[in-house]
């Protein structure tokens, strides 16, 4: 384990209802990395995230976060779950939702403290949602709601931010706001994002892993056409992936990183 590695998975296996979801996974995430996790639906991306968070436990293998088991380091992780939210009509304001990130701090036994409130408000300012603090969460657009969830994760003052499909089913404008936020945040913290979003993969990510039961790692932006070929389950529309990537891929995927896929 190198000194700068914050997340380390070795020989990790996970199965659910007798079906192997992840097998023999090895992964290492360095400090200040921006790691994109790609792969087909049902390939185990979200499972990988939940294993790192300690929500799920591996059947076999070792997971270390900051040199400890996940449950001991979870307070240093900020989690932005996938927005498959059934609870949209829930009576909660933007500010109260962001405050949930302050849960579990030893100083606030039964009430949030003043500093909790300040931290939550700062987190909302970071994602440019402070002006919506008194709005009900159900009245927001998908992109705005996603920013509130990022603020909730930031309110826990994490060292690593883990996001699950943060730009899925959000309009283009909303997506760009999130790219900008993530870019700025990456200057201070490690980011791990499950995403099919080509703008994240090609424009922001520093490295990419492909998860489909097994995990392949390589550095971005060297996304080979083979890798894109593995992105089953996402629609690229009428755009030809090779054309989109242009010369960049043509030149570089013959290098070392490209070889592991042949």
């Amino acid at each position, binding site marked *: 384990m190198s000194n700068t590695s914050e997340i380390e998975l070795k020989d990790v296996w996970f199965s659910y209802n007798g079906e192997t979801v992840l097998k023999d996974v090895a992964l290492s995430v360095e400090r200040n990395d921006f790691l994109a996790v790609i792969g087909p639906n049902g390939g185990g991306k979200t499972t990988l995230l939940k294993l790192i968070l*300690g929500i799920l436990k591996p059947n076999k293998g070792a997971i270390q976060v900051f040199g400890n088991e996940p449950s001991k380091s*979870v307070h240093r992780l900020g989690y932005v779950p996938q927005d498959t939210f059934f609870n949209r009509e829930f*009576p*909660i304001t933007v500010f109260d939702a962001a405050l*949930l*990130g302050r849960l579990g701090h030893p100083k*606030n036994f039964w009430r949030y403290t003043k500093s909790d409130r300040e931290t939550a408000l700062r987190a909302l300012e970071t994602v440019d949602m402070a002006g919506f603090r*008194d709005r009900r969460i159900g009245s927001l657009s998908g992109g705005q709601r996603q920013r509130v969830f990022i603020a909730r994760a930031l309110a826990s003052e994490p060292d690593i931010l883990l996001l699950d499909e943060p730009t899925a089913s959000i309009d283009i404008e909303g997506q760009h706001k999130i790219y900008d936020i993530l870019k700025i945040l990456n200057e201070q913290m490690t980011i791990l994002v499950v995403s099919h979003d080509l703008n994240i993969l090609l424009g922001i990510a520093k490295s990419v892993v492909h998860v489909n039961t097994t995990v392949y790692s390589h550095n971005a932006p060297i996304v080979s056409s083979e890798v894109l070929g593995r992105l089953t389950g996402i629609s690229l529309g009428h755009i030809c992936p090779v054309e989109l990537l242009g010369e960049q891929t043509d030149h570089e995927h013959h290098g070392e990183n490209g070889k592991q896929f042949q």
Partner: protein
Amino acid sequence: MIEALHYDFMQNALIAGLLISLACGVIGSLVVVNRMVFISGGIAHSAYGGIGLAFLLGIPPLLGAGLFSLFIALIIGILTITNKYRSDSIIGALWAAGMAFGIICIDLSPGYGVDLMSYLFGSILAVPHSDLWFAFTLDCVIILGTVILYKDLLALSYDEEYAALRGVKVRLLYFIILCISAITVVMTIRVVGLILVIALLTIPTYISEIFSRSLGRMMVYSSIISALFTCTGLWISYAFNITSGASIIMVATLAFFVVLGLNKLRGKRRNPSKSVESSSNNLNA
């Protein structure tokens, strides 16, 4: 109404109604936002088993119902904790089993002429002093517990997985909600009867949810609305000499449909394209 308050039983009924409204508003809010309405329905109906058992054993019926519904709540909790949203058939079975058990117990009980109607539709006009103290204690426990556990309850209700991640003891809290709602349900049986408990737990909550910006406000508004329904229902019951439980629920349901209609109209006026928009959003998702 004023002259009616000269009667002791009417004063007791009013106090009982107000005390139970408070419990219903707070617990009803938790039950609704946690999607536990069906669970509380199951607890309410299987409480009948406890009433039957109490007659058989010769103990106070509401004590029997209370202990029995706590027992059912624990069973439901154990069976549903791993899969909260797919447990309706188990609850449905317990719902029926509890009622059947109650009827068999009453069949086996010595003597005759148990007034079952009062448990099915409530008997607020016959509330004894001891029940008022019990309701008062229950209110105190509920308010104190909700204030202390508020942020954890909110986190659990809004996003259970995230709450667990941040160290909230979600399982313990889930069991606490189940048990306290079981006791509230039994108290509410006094006012409107076990068949109508669900209405008093959910209708005020539904109305207040429309204009509440937080779970806390929803609890307060629900309690107030519930108290209004109970008082109006009691007054109608007195003025027209009809069953109090039924008239309370009729008031509540009428208000419910009026609010539902007004809310639909308001939504249409404010944003005529909203329904189209939301259906296209569903397609995108």
